[in-house]
């Protein structure tokens, strides 16, 4: 069985509000073109296509079918979709290549979060019997989680602000970031709480965006790029949907996924943490020491395109291998409320 590697990554500009449609075509067409240019591949070279998006976000049924227009689906293509972050679409594409049925795959995710009220739409991902009907918004749920950590001494407001300051500073070199800047922790903490206990800097922005990752079987990958980012570990796990029965200050599913994937020796980690305290939970669960560089892209706090931000983490981490900056990296994606479901990918530059 061949290894699978990431050979290309492109993303649309991450913005607060695009004029485009909710089927993402306007964001995807140029982003796909960029990925093809990078890899020298064309549409007919792609053996399998897989996407991640959400009809609830788009406000229309089968919105992903319209997105297929952006890839050109005639003659018929081999295509699939997940109603999740496209990091999970990448998992499906990885399995597809491992079967030996295809040797290339293109994965894309997109979301126009600005079409509706994102924090309200996201309550539809909750248990539909005892939680969803109350419309608990995503920011409030994260606030419940943040306070548990603050009051139990697991983390502090300062540590949360440090995550924001570092992320926004790193994002100043990311030309696709939505938010960036140099702010001192003290300045951030001087700002008012907007959703007690959260301040604005603790909350990822509402982002319209899309991203694309190209995969190839290892042998094929070496024909495409000098240094493919070979996937050497790939696992995802889930915690209970019952928020009140979880220890929200920990992430057992992240810990389990990391243990199964094998993350020892990673130099860099791209973590999908839409709230500052969630990065602290993830670092703890992953056991990352201070030597591991976290989110050089700025992470989800700099841009959080729904259903693409997790895939973007994998793309950003892979880029560090492909360009020779790092030798072994970790990418993480999350889905669901308060880090309910977590995916861990390990990528290596194997010669």
């Amino acid at each position, binding site marked *: 069985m061949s290894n699978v590697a990431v050979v290309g990554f492109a993303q649309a500009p991450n913005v607060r509000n695009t*004029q*485009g*449609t*909710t*089927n993402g*075509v*306007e964001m995807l*067409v140029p982003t*796909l073109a960029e990925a093809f240019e990078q890899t020298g591949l064309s*549409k007919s070279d792609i053996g399998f296509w897989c996407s991640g998006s959400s009809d*609830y976000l788009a*406000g*229309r049924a089968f919105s992903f079918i319209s997105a297929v*227009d*952006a*890839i*050109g*689906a*005639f003659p018929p293509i081999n295509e699939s979709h997940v109603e999740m972050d496209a990091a999970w679409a990448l998992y499906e594409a990885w399995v597809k290549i491992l079967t030996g049925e295809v040797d290339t795959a293109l994965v894309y995710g997109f979301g126009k979060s*600005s*079409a*509706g*009220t994102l*924090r*309200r*739409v996201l309550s*539809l991902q909750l248990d*539909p*019997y*005892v*939680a*969803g*009907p*109350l*419309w*608990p*918004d995503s*920011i*409030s*749920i*994260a*606030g*419940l*989680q*943040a*306070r*548990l950590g603050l*009051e139990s001494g697991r983390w502090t407001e300062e540590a949360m602000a440090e995550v924001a300051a570092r992320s926004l500073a790193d994002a100043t070199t990311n030309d696709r970031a939505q938010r960036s800047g140099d702010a001192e922790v003290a300045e951030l903490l001087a700002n008012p*709480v*907007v*959703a*007690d*206990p*959260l301040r604005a800097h603790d909350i990822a922005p509402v982002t319209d965006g899309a991203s694309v990752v190209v995969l190839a079987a290892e042998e094929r990958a070496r024909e495409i790029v000098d240094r493919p980012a070979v996937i050497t570990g790939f696992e995802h796990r889930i915690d*209970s949907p*019952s*928020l*009140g*029965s979880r220890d*929200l200050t920990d992430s057992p599913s992240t810990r389990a996924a990391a243990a199964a994937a094998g993350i020892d020796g990673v130099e860099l980690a791209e973590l999908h943490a839409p709230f500052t305290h969630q990065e602290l939970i993830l670092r703890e669960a992953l056991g990352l020491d201070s030597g591991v560089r976290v989110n050089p892209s700025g992470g989800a706090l700099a841009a959080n395109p729904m259903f693409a931000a997790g895939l973007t983490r994998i793309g950003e981490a892979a880029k560090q291998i492909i360009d020779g900056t790092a030798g072994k990296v970790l990418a993480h994606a999350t889905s669901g409320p308060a880090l309910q479901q977590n995916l861990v990918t390990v990528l290596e530059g194997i010669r």
Partner: protein
Amino acid sequence: MITEETPLHAPLEIGFDYTRSLGPVLAHFMTQLANRRITGIRGSDGRVHVPPVEYDPHTAEALTEFVDVSDVGTVRTWSWVSHPVEGQPIQRPFAWALITLDGADTALLHAVDVDSTEQIHTGMRVRVRWADEPVGHITDIAYFVPADAGEERGDAPTPPRPPATERAEDGTVRTVITPIQLDYTHSVSPEESRYLRALAEGRMLGQRCPECEKVYIPPRGACPTDGVPTTTEVELPDTGIVTTFCIVNVPFLGQRIQPPYVTAYILLDGADIPFLHLVLGCEADEVRMGMRVRAAWKPREEWETSLQNVSHFEPTGEPDAPYDSYAHHL
């Protein structure tokens, strides 16, 4: 060259009453709520889960031992909502909280009615404020109030109540209905915007793919064959043919025309992709593949940026198009 105009957009409201059947565990929980009682379930480790879970989190076995708990409990954590969104339990600033009810070991997520963040803290005791007419739904717990709040504390503004559902003969709540309403700003693509603006002027505007040269109406953001933007505009006539059709005999909610009537794929002259529209002006059983049709426009004063400006298509009486001329458009 096509000049860029701001794409058209419009409010889009969608709604659906989700009707969900309940298994034995949630049916009991909801039935108890309708009686203003809260029931949990005991797990394999002896812990009482509220809300009840159907399967044990450790052994995955089906759970059956119900345990009644108090409607008074303790706040474990909370967060503040300055601007409630539609549907939330309290329609003025309030706190969300995870609340462990007395007798329970897990926490229930719900709203607490206090006036400010000064009036809530972790460890605070709170009590259920029941809805006036419980129906067997999680919102029968309208919200929580501080345990020491007297009856003089007035009611908070709350969202509309969910409908009651039909119960089993013994009174068991078997289903819950949760109405879901969502609001969006729906945008159409720049290509669709030009097409819709042309319709408002009584024109049919398509676009040609620069690679395969097919003409699409409505125009697409990208050619589905080639995956490239369609750029060249093409004015099309309002005449064409029926490629294929069906006779609607089945009544359905929202139907505007008395069945039987014909919906058909209309291929405008010069277009490569048909669109769906109505064929009226003849008996349903006279409609046939290849039939020549023309758009019947509504009165000009009713025109808007919509294909509904064409009320339907009707036969022109010209000879039918030969099958071979449209076979590749089927």
